[in-house]
């Protein structure tokens, strides 16, 4: 039988250590909505989403109440729109109309984000994918809840450098169009390598074509809980540190599994995966940087940071995998700069640089995330940063991503404000030497050899 100490421990995690379920994401396939008539397509999409997701928010709130566990976000991901709109859309403006439909449907059912305004040109780019990508700046400027993502490469296909080049310009244009909001549009746009089909986290969530019609995916969180547990083993050897993280990750993941199964049962929609990612928020006590600092670093970014993050990421997976029957999505520690007060503080004092962040992304999910850079950064340099990150993902057979914000009118030392969960962050210095000729080449970087690993 459950005893009082176990009850007190669980409730302390929720009340004092910011334990929560970060998101219940309902994946919806829009393949059955396809039509060659744009208006019919938009009608079909609106009906499909508002019917399937009508009880999502209500059910989420009921679970919150019955278990007294906060479920921060209820969200929707859909089939990549470049596929869905390919037959009906003849121009970028046509795609924007679909974005507006998604936004309207999201408002109607009460979710805060809808992901899947996406294209997957990992190897080659279709005409429709190119049109969708061209429409991204306007789509993100004129909608509130739509998130866009583009998969630019994979371990199996190599990197589509034409698309990488294009995305450098698209990110710049998105920043310009949303200049009045510190280039907020770019916070809803992510490029990926090895993008997973079942990721519940924004901005990279989409409902892949390998998925069934509808599916419930859950993202857990709990950096504060892990941090608190680590503080109890201060000065102890690494074995003990790893064990502590594993045990805590097990409990956190079990919670995610429970919520996923309950949501699935109540909505009558199959449960897909639990994503084990540790996701920070700007709140104090909900930070990945704090965890790394509790391990013995003076500040995140100091030598030892990459090793500490590798250990954390691996131990979280080991604990989480035992706790859940189906693990998927991104499943690692997120290191978004603007959403983590410890990262912000470290970037502000110069301890954490873009180059160190890049090294950190080699050992954790997902990549260069929520990083503000000077608005004057050239498109080719942004493409260069993306290419580097894609190469890390391609060679290491992992998901990597870039969500970078060239903040219009701001420079190193300024602060960009995105608001809410997206937080605020210092504009970080970018290496000013050019890679323009490298990016201008065009074509593909071939898939890597899968042997001779060194």
């Amino acid at each position: 039988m459950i005893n009082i100490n176990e009850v007190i421990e669980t409730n302390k995690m929720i009340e004092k250590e910011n334990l929560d379920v970060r998101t219940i994401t309902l994946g919806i396939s829009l393949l059955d909505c396809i039509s060659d008539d744009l208006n019919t397509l938009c009608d079909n999409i609106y009906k499909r989403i508002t019917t399937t997701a009508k009880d999502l928010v209500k059910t989420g709130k009921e679970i919150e109440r019955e278990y007294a566990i906060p479920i921060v976000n209820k969200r929707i991901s859909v089939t990549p729109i470049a596929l869905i709109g390919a037959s009906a859309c003849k121009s970028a403006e046509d795609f924007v109309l679909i974005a507006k439909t998604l936004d309207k449907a999201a408002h109607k059912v009460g979710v805060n984000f809808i992901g899947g305004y996406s294209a997957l040109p990992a190897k080659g780019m279709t005409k429709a994918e190119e049109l969708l990508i061209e429409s991204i700046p306007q789509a993100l400027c004129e909608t509130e809840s739509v998130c866009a993502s583009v998969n630019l490469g994979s371990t199996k296909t190599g990197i589509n450098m034409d698309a990488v080049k294009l995305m450098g310009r698209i990110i710049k244009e998105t920043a310009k169009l949303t200049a009045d909001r510190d280039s907020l549009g770019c916070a809803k746009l992510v490029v990926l390598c090895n993008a997973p089909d079942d990721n519940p986290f924004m901005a990279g969530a989409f409902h892949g074509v390998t998925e069934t019609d509808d599916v419930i995916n859950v993202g857990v969180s709990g950096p504060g809980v892990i941090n608190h547990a680590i503080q109890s083993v201060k000065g102890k050897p690494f074995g003990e540190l790893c064990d502590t993280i594993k045990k805590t990750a097990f409990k956190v993941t079990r919670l995610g599994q429970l919520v996923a199964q309950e949501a699935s049962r109540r909505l009558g929609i199959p449960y897909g995966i639990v994503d084990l990612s540790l996701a920070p928020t700007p709140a104090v006590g909900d930070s990945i940087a704090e965890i790394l600092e509790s391990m013995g670093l003076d500040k995140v970014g100091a030598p030892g940071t990459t090793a500490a993050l590798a250990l954390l990421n691996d131990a979280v997976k080991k604990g989480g995998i035992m706790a859940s029957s189906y693990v998927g999505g991104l499943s690692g520690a997120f290191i978004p700069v603007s959403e983590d007060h410890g990262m912000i503080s470290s970037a502000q004092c110069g301890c954490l640089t873009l180059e160190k962040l890049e090294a950190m992304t080699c050992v954790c999910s997902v990549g260069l995330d929520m990083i503000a850079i000077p608005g004057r950064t050239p498109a080719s340099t942004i493409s260069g940063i993306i290419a580097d990150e894609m190469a890390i993902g391609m060679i290491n057979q992992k998901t990597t991503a870039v969500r970078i914000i060239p903040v219009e009118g701001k420079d190193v030392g300024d602060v960009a404000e995105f608001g809410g969960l997206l937080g605020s962050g210092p504009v970080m210095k970018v290496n000013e030497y050019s890679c323009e000729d490298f990016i201008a080449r065009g074509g593909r970087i071939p898939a890597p050899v899968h042997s001779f690993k060194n």
Partner: protein
Amino acid sequence: MEKSKSIITVVGKDQVGIIARVTTYLYESNVNIEDISQSIVGGYFNMMMIVDTSDANKEFLALSKELEELGNKIGVIIKLQREDIFKSMQRI
């Protein structure tokens, strides 16, 4: 459809009559108490009850809200949670 076991926790400054008022409410709502453990640490009252709400005369969400309101009236924090959350987190 209702699953039976739930946990009620009461946390707050100790005072006369906390258990009396909570159990009176449970009696009126036809909720059966299966186990009670309680301790006072540093003047703070900590109580946990395992209850069966399957024959309750109101919905689970209504019970949960009314218990919270009762807590506000007495000046303690009262929570009603389904037992599964503790079982899934604390047991392999």
